[in-house]
């Protein structure tokens, strides 16, 4: 067991973990933040996407101990209290989800893209989604939602 400390959605958390604990299990089981999903556990689906030090990563492919001292943002930290983030609103308004399983990963991916590139083209959005799978929507409305969300964020 090793003690690990990190900031998750603005709050410092410190816990003893087994060395082989994956970051996704730490977030879901230890912190009880179950908005971040596990679709494959093999680095393919991207439903587990979170931000670590402002970069998108797959939380299923990282040890909790690798996040020592890191700043973590999960889907639970995106909305402002009860007001949805413009990107979340854009997904709701543009039918960017059906079952919603992939959505937390899609939104975290979209936010990582927009940090670097506030005005992405449709092609850039599609490329950025290389690591995120959706089994419902056919992606069309996810792309529309991200472009719309980016526009709303620029307008803010």
């Amino acid at each position, binding site marked *: 067991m*090793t003690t690990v400390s990190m900031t998750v959605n603005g709050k410092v958390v410190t816990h003893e973990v*087994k*060395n*082989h604990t*994956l970051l996704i299990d730490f977030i879901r089981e230890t912190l009880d933040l179950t908005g971040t999903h596990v679709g494959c*556990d*093999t*680095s393919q689906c*991207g439903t587990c*996407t979170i931000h670590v030090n402002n*970069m*998108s*990563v*797959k939380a299923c*492919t*990282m*040890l909790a*101990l*690798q996040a*020592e001292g890191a700043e973590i943002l999960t889907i639970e930290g995106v909305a402002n209290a009860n007001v949805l983030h413009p990107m979340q609103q854009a997904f709701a308004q543009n039918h960017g989800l059906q079952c919603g399983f992939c959505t937390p990963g899609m939104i975290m*991916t979209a936010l*990582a*893209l927009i940090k670097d590139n506030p005005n992405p083209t449709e092609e850039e959005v599609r490329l*950025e989604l*290389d*690591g*995120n799978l959706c089994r419902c929507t056919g992606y069309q409305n996810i792309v529309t939602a991200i472009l719309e969300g980016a526009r709303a964020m620029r307008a803010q």
Partner: protein
Amino acid sequence: MLSEFNYHRPESLDDAIELINTTVDGLFLAGGQTILPLMKHNLATPTDIIDLASIEELKGISVNDESITIGAMTSHTTVAKSQIVRDNFLSLAELAGAIGDPHIRNKGTIGGSIAYNDPAADYPAALLGLGATVFTNKREISADDFFVDIFETALEEGELIIRIDFPFVDCTAYEKFANPASLFALVGVMVSRNDSIVRVAVTGAGPSVFRINQIEKALEASFTAASLDEVPIKHADLNTDLHASAEYRAHLIKVLAARAVRKAANQLDQKAPHL
């Protein structure tokens, strides 16, 4: 489920080497984008993980008169976005920016990629096609000697990659045909030319990255896509799997090499508008 291990996060190179030499079956952890999936399947069961994340000597990109240097722990995203790399080796920046997906590129490192030598990884083609040199804690190893066989390199036990040097070339381009599901290269071809020397390295097609002598010779005679038309590509030793036959991979090598040559030759034209 990963099996249990001891975890270390040394702050210096010396400490990391000392640790690996004292553990029973220790493993260096770079970005973890390959080793963690392997550990989940119990294909790797190290007694100790030595996380390299805190070692400053392994990070960073720099440039001098002859080459650029990339630290082993530099992520694919950092290489793809680096102005130094983009100015001097656009092909390398583009290659790094097309590895896997954005999340994997944020964690995966150049040192980790080449140490593993996956037969379909992109970086081995970059090192071999650009004539790079790998610097370890023990010695320097030319790319020609570094990649030995499938998942095998010249690295010995307790040997750690510190940095990779890429000597400047006149022009270079990388073209790959990615498997749309795995995003690995079905075939990838890195071409570079420096004075009269041409290097052509192929990944994804064989057990390990390799150079194609006949193509290099043809391009040294005439650096044009057309000069490849008559070059025969043997497919006897190439991979056949559910994604592509050896014949198809041989075909792709030629198509991709031709594309890369066109792209690289274009850079030469732009560099020398007076010609």
